[in-house]
C-alpha cells in the first residue's frame, strides 16, 4: 500500500502492473490454488475437441491478478466492492497490462472512499476484463 494514499488520492490517478508471457503453468498453478479444474483450462485434448486451438486461462485468474491493482494501491483490507465483466479470454504466452484509474473520491459515514475503473488488456490491445472497484480506508 502506498504511504499516505488517503491524503493524496485524486481523480484520474493511475496504477499499472504488467505481466509478460503468462503461460499454461500459471493457469495450472491457479487451478491448484483456486480449485477450478474445468479441463478446458488445462487439458489440450479436451480443448481441441471443443474446437479451440489450445487451453485458455480462467477468468478468475485474470480477475485475481487485476485485483492486485486496488490491493497494492490502497491495501488488501481496503476492498469494499469488486465487480468484473469478462470480455475476452487469456491465452498462453499473452502479456497483460492490469490498469486502474480513480474515477471518484468521497467520504461516506466519515470514511474515505474511492471508486476505480479497472481493466486487463492483452498485447493485442484486447480488453480481457473490464471492472470497477470501490476501496475505503478500513481500520482494524
Amino acid at each position, binding site marked *: 500500500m502506498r504511504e499516505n494514499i488517503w491524503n493524496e488520492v485524486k481523480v484520474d490517478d493511475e496504477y499499472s502492473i504488467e505481466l509478460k508471457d503468462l503461460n499454461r503453468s500459471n493457469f495450472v498453478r491457479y487451478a491448484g*490454488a483456486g*480449485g477450478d479444474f474445468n479441463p*478446458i483450462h488445462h487439458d489440450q485434448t479436451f480443448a481441441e475437441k471443443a474446437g479451440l486451438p489450445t487451453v485458455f486461462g480462467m477468468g478468475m485468474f485474470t480477475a*485475481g491478478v487485476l*485485483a492486485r491493482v486496488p490491493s497494492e494501491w490502497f491495501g*488488501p*483490507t481496503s476492498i469494499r466492492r469488486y465487480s468484473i465483466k469478462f470480455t475476452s479470454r487469456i491465452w498462453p504466452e499473452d502479456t497483460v497490462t492490469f490498469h486502474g484509474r480513480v474515477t471518484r473520491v468521497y467520504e461516506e459515514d466519515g470514511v474515505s472512499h474511492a471508486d476505480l475503473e479497472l481493466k486487463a488488456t492483452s498485447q493485442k490491445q484486447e480488453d480481457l476484463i473490464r471492472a470497477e472497484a470501490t476501496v475505503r480506508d478500513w481500520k482494524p
Partner: protein
Amino acid sequence: MAQIQPPGFPIERGKIHEFANSLLDDDPLYHDLNAARAAGLPSVVAPPTFSSAAAFFSDPNARGPSMKGLDMRFLLHGGQELVFERPIFAGDELHSEPGETTSWEKEGRRGGTMKFIKNEMVWRDQAGEIVLRVFNTLIQTAGVVKD
C-alpha cells in the same frame, strides 16, 4: 470428492499463501503473519477473489446453481461482483448460503442463443455476521465462441 467436516470454508494461512502466489502477488499481508500483526490485523488477509477457492470446500447444502443440463465445453464465466462488509482473515470460518438465482436468454451474434445464469452466494463468519456477498454470472452458449 469427499467433503470437509464440519462443512464450511475454513480460511487458512497456508491456502492464502498458495493462492496469493498463484496470482504472483508477494504482498506481505498475504504471506507474513508478523507483518499482518504489526499492521494491527488478526492474521494474514485473504486476497479479494479468495472466495473462489471455496470450490474446494463446497458444502452440499450451499452449492451454487446446479450445473445439471449445462454443457461444460460451452460454459463461459460472464462476470462476478464481490461486496465485502469487512476483510476476511486467516482463522475465519465461513459458511455460505445461496441467494437468489435468475436466468434469462439472449440471441448472441457469435455463438447462437445464449443462456445467462446469475446467482448470489452469501458468506457469513463464525459469529453469523455477513462478511461477503458474491454474485456470479455464467453464460451457456450454443457452440464454440470464436474470438
